[in-house]
């Protein structure tokens, strides 16, 4: 094994893992506060990628402004789905919530299909992101370097929010005891909405990174990426943000390693995330950093 090739693949794995991690955080946070696997989350990511695409190619915005548009737009959409679709079901059985999530997912996919067509659209990647850097025999694009850096910055911000701000503390408290959160004079519904906002904003960033690296957007892009990010959240331990990040990297690296070193199995690369998912569910259902919700009064 050539060391440079190995390092090259590590860089790729880090980049891919970051994208899964960004999306997985939304799954895990929403699960924490609602015990819901938000199957519409991958589609929120798709909407984020589209908003970025529209921002650059139709509105002619500079790339950072388009990212901002995508982040704000997706956060608003995530909060809206909570408000109009999930909130009315707070006291309904969890299965109703799950079915609603699947409904929203289908709705978004088909609405985008109808309005914008199913053909992938080339994402206008800014030139500076395509510059290839080389370092000691390794080569990588600015984009693939930017993805993990931005992810780590965002992760630091999220952890700061969760552990150092009162809103973050309320999010963590909510995962264990909703009623008592209300007793603190906190509107639990508002906190839940903030969680949807944060998760959707991160998903939008993930979606745009995806669109930049595999430079296209299409209405069904959220399905497979979303499922893999969901697998990442479960592997890392659903409910735990750090777990989602670890899970994202595990799935990202696995995929890269399979393609690079076992090319004969390359065609199955998408299956490995789910093999990991099944193994985790069989042997350690709470995942790597899974929170122990046994004592929760949810």
């Amino acid at each position, binding site marked *: 094994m050539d060391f440079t090739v190995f390092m090259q693949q590590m860089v790729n794995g880090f980049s891919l893992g970051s994208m899964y991690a960004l999306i997985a955080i939304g799954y895990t946070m929403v699960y924490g506060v609602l015990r819901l696997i938000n199957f519409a989350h991958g589609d929120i990511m798709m909407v984020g990628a589209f908003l970025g695409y529209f921002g650059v190619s139709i509105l002619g915005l500079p790339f950072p402004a388009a990212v901002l548009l995508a982040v704000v737009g997706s956060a608003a959409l995530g909060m809206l789905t909570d408000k109009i679709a999930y909130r009315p079901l707070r006291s309904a059985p969890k299965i109703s919530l799950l079915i609603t999530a699947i409904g929203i997912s289908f709705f978004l996919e088909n609405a985008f299909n109808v309005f914008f067509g199913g053909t992938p659209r080339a994402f206008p990647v800014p030139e500076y992101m395509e510059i290839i850097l080389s370092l000691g025999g390794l080569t990588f694009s600015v984009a693939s370097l930017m993805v993990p850096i931005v992810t780590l910055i965002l992760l630091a911000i999220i952890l700061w929010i969760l552990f150092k701000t009162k809103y973050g503390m309320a999010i963590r408290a909510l995962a*264990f005891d909703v009623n008592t959160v209300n007793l603190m004079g906190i509107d639990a519904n508002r906190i839940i909405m903030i969680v949807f906002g944060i998760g959707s904003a991160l998903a939008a960033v993930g979606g745009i990174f995806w669109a930049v690296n595999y430079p296209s957007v299409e209405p069904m892009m959220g399905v497979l990426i979303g499922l893999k990010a969901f697998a990442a959240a479960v592997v890392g331990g659903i409910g735990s943000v750090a777990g989602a990040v670890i899970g994202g990297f595990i799935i990202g690296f696995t995929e890269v390693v399979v393609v690079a070193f076992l090319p004969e199995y390359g065609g199955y690369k998408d299956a490995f995330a789910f093999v990991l998912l099944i193994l985790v569910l069989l042997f350690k259902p709470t995942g790597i950093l899974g929170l122990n919700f046994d*004592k929760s009064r949810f």
Partner: protein
Amino acid sequence: MISVKDLHVYYGLIEAVKGIDFKVDEGKIVSLIGSNGAGKTSTLEAVLNSVKRSGEIIFSGYDIVNHKTHSLVQRGLALVPEGRRVFINLTVEDNLRMGAFNNDENYARLRDAMYKLFPRIKEKRNQMAGTLSGGEQQMLAISRALMSEPKLLMLDEPSLGLAPKIVGEVFETIVKLKEEGITILLVEQNAFAALKISDYAYVLENGKIAMEGIASQMIGDDEIRKKYLGG
């Protein structure tokens, strides 16, 4: 301070509280006593609108029956819930922070006051609340409720599961809070201890008020002692 009329609480088809009236005057300690399943917890939760209920609830002159739990707390009601219910996955200090969620400007001052009131929880302020003993959790639950600077503090069985010495401390604290001007509605099974510090008391039986009166007279009344206070 608070006056409740014709309060009913329902759990599906079960009616746990069957039309009770009670009031708590400003600056007083009022006790709600009664045996298991009498409807004490349901009554407190009904005041805070966290169970399905009907009736009239007037707090400081305002009809609050349609307010949500969190907005009632913002208006000066607070509950130390049965079984403490501290946030086990948050540190002691972060539990206090949650209590002061809508009281940012006074957080630091109140936190220090709580640490003075209960030095034991100060020592453990960076520990997860789930690692505290039962008594320490009770102190934390009381402190956390006080962080919102409530006008009416409701306590649901604060002595439950505590060693006698700590029960004494908790009751002393309640008296201290009253002296500081906080109105208190106390639910207790430990009826004697509750009556001793109360001004007025209601005895709840099967969702109805079986009797009420001035606390000191209830302790003195032999018949009441036999019937409701177990001796």
